């Protein structure tokens, strides 16, 4: 059951990666008139259209991660400590901190993207924060799974 939830957590994270990457591309590297290649099409999106999907995926991914976290604490982390693989624990510590603060930012992210278009700097900064932290969390989770695997 826990392994199935971990896989679902990873799949949700993958969708989230796709959504935030599309939004970040649309914000920081928008498609220019006349560009029709594959990459340009990935950039040629309406960034505001991804806000709801990102919020839903973030919450679902977060809740799944929070639910299976005890398994990590009991069965994964102690062996890592025994093996002195402290860097792997550190990767996870940063991940949990990014995830918690990112969750708290979601209501404000929704407001500035849906209701306050005049705050362009805030909108861009929040997308940049989510882009970097979500990518980090995805890679860190993947690395940690490779180091120890699941129980």
């Amino acid at each position: 059951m826990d392994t199935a939830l971990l896989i679902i957590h990873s799949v949700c994270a993958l969708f989230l990666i796709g959504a935030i990457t599309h939004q970040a591309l649309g914000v920081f590297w928008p498609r220019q008139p006349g560009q029709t290649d594959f990459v340009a099409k990935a950039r040629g999106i309406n960034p505001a259209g991804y806000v709801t999907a990102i919020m839903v995926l973030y919450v679902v991914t977060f809740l799944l991660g929070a639910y299976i976290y005890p398994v990590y604490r009991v069965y994964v982390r102690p062996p890592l400590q025994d093996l002195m693989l402290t860097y792997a624990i550190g990767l996870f510590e940063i991940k949990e901190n990014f995830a918690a603060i990112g969750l708290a930012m979601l209501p404000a992210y929704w407001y500035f993207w849906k209701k306050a278009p005049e705050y362009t700097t805030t909108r861009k900064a929040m997308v940049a924060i989510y882009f970097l932290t979500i990518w980090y969390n995805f890679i860190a989770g993947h690395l940690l799974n490779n180091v120890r695997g699941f129980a």
Partner: protein
Amino acid sequence: MNRIASRAFPGFAIGFTLYYAPAYSFTGATSSFTWPLFTYFPAIGQWNWGLVPGNDNIGPPMWWYGWILSAVVVGLIFAVIAMLLPEKAVQKTLATLVWVVPILAFIFLLNWELPWFVPDWKPIWFS
């Protein structure tokens, strides 16, 4: 709704972050302040109010859930305070702090996360 959200939502994020970062950094088995509202012991499925250290009988403690709940409470307090402030006077400030505070918090947290990667690292706070 917009008038409330413009101050309450950034206020919540700022308050949450301002509590969460030191909570993670300063929580320890001998902390004098109860940063997490509760402690969960996953090995035995037990919840305890406040900060409770683990031992060989009850297993390792999890404070993350407790930090989040504590930070939610602080975030809500900040949201209420933000709503009491005049909208025009604080909206720009909140729109800036809502992303500056998390970035500063990540830097602050990194100082306490580095010992996992650099064993000799001493957090600058005490050095």
